[in-house]
């Protein structure tokens, strides 16, 4: 590979990016240009802020502050880097090695070009100037020893990019199988979410112990004040002080006690910080990304060796990783890769799954049942829907950790029904991405609906039924969890149960409308729009954001009236909530049946336009 190849490939990448931006419309071009300008400004600013910050703020700080600062930077870098990696995994690579290998360039050239393209990354563009700037600033402020932070930063970047490249190669091999691709993305995302929740859980625990400490300090203060008052009383009785000096002495004792406790709190805080710094240093010593902050701190303390060893070790690990990646790519493209062949077993037709294929759902026609069952099955296997279903999981985890941290919550009985309503709204918010673009995930499959000899109303009802188990199921599970921590009376619980289908039907009415008039093609394996159209995207975003406020109004009325009456009469109004929820469900069901007949006509008229948008999505 020579310079001509390199320039040609850079040009290719430039044209690919430009065409992608142009395809999305003029507004997108403007937004992209603005984003590039903002990115460049941020990048340059980050460099100067880094220098200024390092030179001014870090002049007189302790080594612990330096340690924590660099660890925060490293953690932020890795978090943003991982998010970028997750996004990248979901989209098709602009320029993979496969697309270069038929050209007259060596595999080594293609490999290094592909690796170097991983440097064109938002995280690198934003963080690198800032880290270099901070290193320079700290060098100016604290002495030449800290110049070592520059090789440490470059070593860190090399380590992260090479290990990521190796990981990407490994994941790419896993994702070659389109069936496992989606599951892999979903698992990686869940693992990432779990990891990001660790600081949250630590924080919840820390907040709990902080509250305990504050409480114990308040008790201690009260005790000291009480003892002080008793002592002053005793001294007055003994005639040591005059009664008119009572106020002066009491305030004196109180202020001394407050100072004493504040001093104790400071000491405890310093001890905790020192302990945390010790833990962070230990973790840094064992985890390679931590060698950057540790090396900087040791250099600041006058010891160059850990920093030198750290940067050398990071470069060494990076080189080994790059070497492994290169040889595994070589094995793959030379056909020397050992591969486990998955045997495809032929099985008799009569299996349990096939029985499910012929199930007719209660109260639904044969065709509605077929659309519902096969759409549900398709949805459950689609990685993109798995990604969307993670959202309620996140909310559940956050809510769960909050509730577990708090224990049982003391909410007045008349207000308890509002919490499950919030849970329903949040779950529907999460599901809306699928519900508001019901044909997007079908892609070429939507053509099967267009060619099918069935009423378009049956397609809509079948689609709504396919998503119902997910939406209603998640709602019911989360209501059950809330019931454990914030129990409501039985009638209110029943009413909440009725609220779930009532809200879901309203979401279906809106979801059908948006799906028919503003469809969006979705890339395989992600929820990213394939050919983003501004109006459709805006409608989708506004729809998702505004829907909870509008579609929850009937539920808020059904729940609000019993709450107000209950608060006024000081009596439980569960029966009223149940009655209003039953009426609400009946009215919504009637409206749904009426509106879906009109939506059928719209779908018939627009199905070829929908097909034009959702089908023929490139790999």
């Amino acid at each position, binding site marked *: 590979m020579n310079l001509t190849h390199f320039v040609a490939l850079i040009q290719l990448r430039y044209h690919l990016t430009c065409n992608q931006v142009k395809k999305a419309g003029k507004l997108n071009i403007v937004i992209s240009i603005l984003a590039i300008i903002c990115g460049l400004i941020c990048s340059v600013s980050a460099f100067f802020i880094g220098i200024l910050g390092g030179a001014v703020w870090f002049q007189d700080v302790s080594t612990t502050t330096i340690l924590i600062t660099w660890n925060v930077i490293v953690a932020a870098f890795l978090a943003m880097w991982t998010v970028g990696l997750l996004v990248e995994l979901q989209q098709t690579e602009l320029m993979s090695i496969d697309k270069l290998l038929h050209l007259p360039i060596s595999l080594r050239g293609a490999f290094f070009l592909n690796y170097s393209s991983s440097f064109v990354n938002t995280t690198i563009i934003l963080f690198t100037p800032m880290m270099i700037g901070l290193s320079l600033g700290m060098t100016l402020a604290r002495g030449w020893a800290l110049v070592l932070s520059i090789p440490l930063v470059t070593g860190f970047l090399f380590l992260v990019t090479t290990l990521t490249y190796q990981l990407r190669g490994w994941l790419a091999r896993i994702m070659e*199988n389109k069936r496992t691709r989606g599951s892999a993305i979903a698992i990686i995302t869940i693992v990432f979410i779990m990891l990001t929740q660790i600081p949250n859980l630590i924080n919840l625990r820390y907040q709990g112990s902080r509250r305990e400490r504050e409480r114990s300090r308040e008790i201690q203060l009260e005790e000291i004040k009480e003892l002080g008052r008793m002592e002053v009383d005793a001294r007055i009785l003994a005639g040591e002080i005059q009664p008119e000096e009572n106020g002066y002495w009491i305030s004196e004792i109180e202020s001394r006690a407050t100072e004493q406790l504040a001093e104790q709190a400071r000491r405890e805080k310093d001890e905790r910080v020192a302990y945390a710094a010790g833990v962070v240093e230990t973790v840094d010593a064992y985890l390679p990304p931590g060698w950057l902050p540790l090396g900087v701190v040791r250099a600041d303390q006058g010891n160059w060796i850990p920093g030198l060893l750290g940067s050398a070790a990071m470069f060494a690990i990076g080189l080994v990783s790059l070497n492994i990646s290169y040889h595994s790519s070589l094995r793959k493209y030379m056909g020397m890769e050992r591969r486990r062949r998955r045997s495809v*077993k*032929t099985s008799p037709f009569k299996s349990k799954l*096939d029985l499910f*294929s012929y199930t007719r759902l209660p109260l639904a026609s044969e*065709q509605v*049942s077929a659309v519902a069952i096969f759409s549900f099955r398709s949805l459950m296997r689609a990685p993109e829907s798995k990604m969307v279903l993670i959202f309620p999981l996140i909310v559940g985890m956050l809510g769960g950790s909050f509730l577990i941290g708090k224990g049982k919550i003391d909410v007045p009985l008349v207000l308890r029904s509002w919490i499950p309503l919030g849970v329903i709204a949040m779950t529907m918010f999460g599901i809306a991405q699928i519900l508001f673009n019901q044909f997007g995930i079908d892609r*070429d499959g939507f053509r099967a609906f267009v060619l099918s000899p069935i009423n378009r109303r049956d397609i809509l009802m079948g689609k709504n039924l396919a998503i119902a188990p997910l939406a209603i199921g998640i709602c019911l599970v989360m209501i059950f969890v809330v019931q454990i921590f914030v129990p409501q009376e039985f009638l209110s619980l029943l009413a909440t149960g009725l609220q779930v289908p009532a809200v879901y039907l309203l979401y279906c009415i809106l979801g059908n409308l948006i799906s028919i008039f503003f469809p969006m093609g979705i890339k395989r394996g992600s929820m990213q729009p394939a050919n983003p159209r501004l109006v459709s995207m805006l409608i989708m975003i506004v729809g998702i954001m505004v829907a909870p406020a509008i579609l929850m109004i009937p539920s808020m009325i059904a729940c609000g009236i019993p709450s107000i009456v209950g608060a006024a009469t000081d009596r439980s109004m569960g029966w009223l909530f149940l009655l209003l929820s039953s009426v609400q469900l009946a009215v919504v069901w009637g409206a749904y049946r009426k509106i879906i007949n009109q939506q059928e006509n719209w779908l*018939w008229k627009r199905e*070829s336009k929908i097909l034009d948008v959702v089908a023929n999505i490139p790999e």
Partner: protein
Amino acid sequence: MNPAIRTNNLTKDFEGFRAVNQVNLTVERGSLFGFLGPNGAGKSTTIKMLTGILAPSSGDIDLLGGNPWDPVEGIKIKKQTGVVPEDLALFDNLTAREYLTFVGRMHLLDKTTIIQRSEELLQLLKLEGVEKKLAVEYSHGMKKKLALAAALLPNPDLLFLDEPFEGVDAVTARVIRDLLTNYVARGSTVFVTSHVLEIVERICTHVGIIANGILVEQSSLEELRKGNSLEQRFLQLVGTVDEPTPNLTWLDGGRSLREAAGVFENTAELSGENELPRSDAHRPLEPPGDTKNSIPASGSAESTE
């Protein structure tokens, strides 16, 4: 009896471009109609309009006596038609059996019929071994076969097949060919587009040729050929038969040997440095007398250097 397909001034305009221009097509029942045309002539656009996938800009369509774009008649017509569209109509995340079951249920076939027909179709099209794979994992040829199976499953009166032989192996192509012939023999109608003129010549009873969106010919195969081969007639009708095949300006007789030498040379590089075979096309051609990189007359692959 009404023809199976009749169009009147069928037209499709895209932005600033007329893909199909006032096409008047008549396909009699019981015929195997081959719809031919060069790339981009408007074959697939026409088939999309006929099957209700793409709305026509103007003109009328009569399919089995009804209008496929009418909400009531359209559904009746869809019950009697099977379609293999250009970009297929498969769900990525369903297996072959599941997809066939879905199509069968859409056509309100009973369970026994669906099972029996699915079994036969999967065996006939050699798909029974990959029944557990999702459609997204299939090769293009396998997807085509599955789409064909789905089109045949409801036993329709009218079949639309857009390039059914594209990407399909020779054995399956023969199976499809025989199947279509038998299908027409029992009175059904098949409308097929294909680039493979030999197959069209062998199986079709009637042929229509479209070029630049205009239907330039439609008649029975015998009438169309007039003693010539279908290829000759096709080239005459699309207006390219008299044009000489243009040649590339840089192709000359002496190049092949030098190129072969270049490939050998680079193969040696490949074994040493993992370089891929390199084309010589970017190198300037050397004067005829220079034999530095040419293969010796004996045919040895070694360089004379």
